[in-house]
């Protein structure tokens, strides 16, 4: 799923400084699962902002709202009757949300309240890790289910580099060297010879380097 972190409160307060009546829209998709933009987080942020503004002597009205997803026009449409009743709208979805909202309602101003960080999963409760860089050409099966593109700090296809020490990456002691994991697994399973393979220079056109991407499923397009 898409992982995000809540923006610092001060940054959000600064965004809404000019406004007295806003809507805060959460998303039931990824950000609910990673506990950053679901119903609970919407309620907490709304209360916090209200209290802070009350203290300043400038109370603010905040409407709380949840959408099934903010990455689908069908659900974005559900705000059609209400979107213009507010000075501004805050989205708690990933970066897709505020953009889809802005595209649907060009007259309104939309603000992101989270920083979208990566595609990954929960490795334990409250801890998420990156697992996919969305390079558009998946090769994880050659590396025993581990992705060197997203998980190696240098995206090396021929690792590990000379900075791998005791299973950790050179950039920080708490960053696992994925190449160490790959080599260990290959060794354990007697397939170290797999790593004698040469990988030709990767074609990054399928990644973000090729420009903004689009996926067209012909059978679904009317």
């Amino acid at each position, binding site marked *: 799923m898409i992982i995000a972190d809540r923006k610092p409160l001060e940054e959000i307060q600064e965004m809404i400084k000019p406004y007295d009546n806003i809507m805060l829209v959460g998303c039931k998709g990824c950000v609910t699962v990673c506990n950053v933009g679901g119903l609970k987080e919407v309620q907490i942020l709304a209360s916090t902002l209200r209290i802070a503004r009350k203290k300043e002597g400038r109370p603010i009205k905040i409407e709380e709202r949840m959408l099934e997803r903010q990455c689908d026009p069908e659900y974005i449409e559900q705000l059609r009757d209400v979107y213009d009743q507010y000075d501004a709208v805050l989205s708690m979805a990933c970066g897709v949300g505020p953009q889809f909202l802005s595209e649907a309602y060009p007259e309104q101003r939309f603000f992101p309240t989270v920083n979208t960080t990566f595609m990954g999963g929960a490795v334990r409760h409250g801890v998420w890790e990156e697992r996919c860089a969305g390079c558009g050409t998946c090769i994880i099966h050659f590396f025993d289910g581990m992705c060197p593109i997203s998980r190696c*700090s*240098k*995206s*090396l*296809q*021929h*690792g*590990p*580099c*000379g*900075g*791998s*020490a*005791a*299973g950790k990456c*050179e*950039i*920080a002691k708490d960053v696992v*060297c994925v190449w*160490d994991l790959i*080599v*260990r697994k290959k*060794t354990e399973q007697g397939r*170290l010879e797999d*790593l*004698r393979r*040469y*990988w*030709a*220079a*990767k074609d*990054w056109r399928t990644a973000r380097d090729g420009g903004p991407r689009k996926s067209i499923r012909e059978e679904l397009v009317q």
Partner: protein
Amino acid sequence: MSDNGYKSGSNLERVLKAGHFAFTGECGPPKGANVEHLNEKMAPLKGVVDAINVTDNQTAVVRMSSKAASALMVQAGLEPNFQMVCRDRNRIAMQSDILGIHALGIRNMLCLSGDHQKFGNHPEAKNVYDLDSMQLIALAKKMRDEGKFLNDEEIDGPPKLFIGAAANPFADPTEFRVYRLANKIDAGADFIQTQCIYNMPRFREFMKRAVDMGLTERAYILAGVTPMKSAGMAKYMAKFVPGMDVPAELIKRLEGAGKGKMAEEGIKFAIEQIEEFKQMAGVAGVHLMAIEWEHKVPEIAERAGVLPRPVMDPA
């Protein structure tokens, strides 16, 4: 290979091909456009080493470009070993720089991944890593031997470079290191310069495996030596430099030398190492990285018995 039988005809290649025990040095370009400073650093190396590695923004700290510093070296009559890292350039810039350095008279190139920018003085930077070091080696070889760019277009004047790569026998996972060396040689490395060696038993083991695998028949391996200036430096390297193996006995030995005598003890250890490398099967030379200690290189070379350097006929 060109008509004269050399891949690039660099001095380093000629020295190695003739069977001499090679001796290379290193020079970090200045943190500025101060050419005088660069001249001061490289002057002591003249006639003392076969080629000088010119580092490419090492530890991700911005310095004068290795391309410019290498070209200045050529002008001064010294032979550079131009270092190129994958961190800062995509394949377009890499190929362009390879053509450029050859045009400037540079004939050796060392292909490296590069230290991650997180270490350096611009940790906010975006990195590139379009190619990795293995692919950079293969690219330089393709440009030289096939006369083609990565996209298979013909090159008007292929760059004939003597291609180097690095190997760290001490990084983890240890058992894989010799395979990675083999991969680099397969990709096209003509010579290898290793990371600084302090743990001699581990290096002996590494070399034995390299020899057994026939790797030393296919590429020249230069053993990396960095003399310790003090026990403090040794401790720092042991603790903070990833992939560095500094045995406790060495730290003890340096401390035992006492204040004011540690640098001499460090040099003594380096000389003992060089003496052993001369005899070690598969080792074709030494790469001396005297970090900010370039003026000590002539003395170390003299005492290690690697002078005078062979004077080769032009290729």
